[in-house]
């Protein structure tokens, strides 16, 4: 990937992006769907677009997904 493509990819925004408030509100639904093996991104493309673009929400999603796929004992 050349420098123009790298910059372009970073600057391009996805109009389906739902933003952090919506992503945090529905994170449990999305993560549970993803953990079940379903195509969560296809069902909720606006969530997928946001989680791809937003580092903190993407990190929260990864953390929740990790916990769901390997739940704490108790």
């Amino acid at each position, binding site marked *: 990937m050349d420098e123009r493509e790298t910059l372009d990819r970073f600057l391009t925004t996805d109009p389906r992006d739902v933003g952090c408030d919506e992503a945090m509100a529905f994170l*449990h639904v999305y993560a549970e769907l993803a953990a079940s093996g379903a195509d969560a991104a296809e069902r909720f493309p606006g969530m997928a677009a946001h989680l791809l673009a937003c580092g*903190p929400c993407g990190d929260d999603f990864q*953390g929740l997904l*990790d916990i769901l796929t390997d739940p704490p004992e108790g």
Partner: protein
Amino acid sequence: MLAAVDDLGALPSERDVDPWVASLRSVGPARDDRLRALHDLLVRVASRELSRRLSASYLGGQDRDDLAHEVAADAMVAILKKLPEFRGESRFTTWAYKFAVLEVSNKLGRSYWTWVGRTVALDTADWAQFEDRMALAPEKSAEARELADALRSAVGNLTPRQREVFVAIVVNGVPLDAMVAKLGTSRNALYKVVFDARRKIRAELVANGHLNPVDE
């Protein structure tokens, strides 16, 4: 502009009342037992999430345990406050884990300035580091130098608020949650500032012939 919740499509149908929810909404020993069990579970989730996000050298074992208990306590408060709003769209535990994960982000954002942020200058843009991340190091090629110059110019044309937030988060690499804590705002509000800044910068680079337009 960010999309609305309606774009998420239909949500899963409501499930039967989860045993956790039934106990937590009750009164008496069963509720007390559930509260203790939930707290223990949240401590374990918080501890796991802190370990995932932090290297061992960043926060020692005892400090990490203390922080996990703080996260669990604050997540408990949030969960009990929001319990009437739980609609059964997921298992109760999934919903509860989310509060612990979000609280870890919140705590780490606030801790950033204590642990590593003392030396971060917010009024000076670290362009060299950013250009390196974007493969725009001026020594790389004439095209990279041209793009880097155009980018700096476009950032200079942002509103003062957009420029402040873009430089701190995108150029200098300050975590978004740390800026949320510093500015006393919300993650969504700062994300939208960066989102709008990216659109504005891209539009300027397109107008000046540096990037191609896209259909949205």
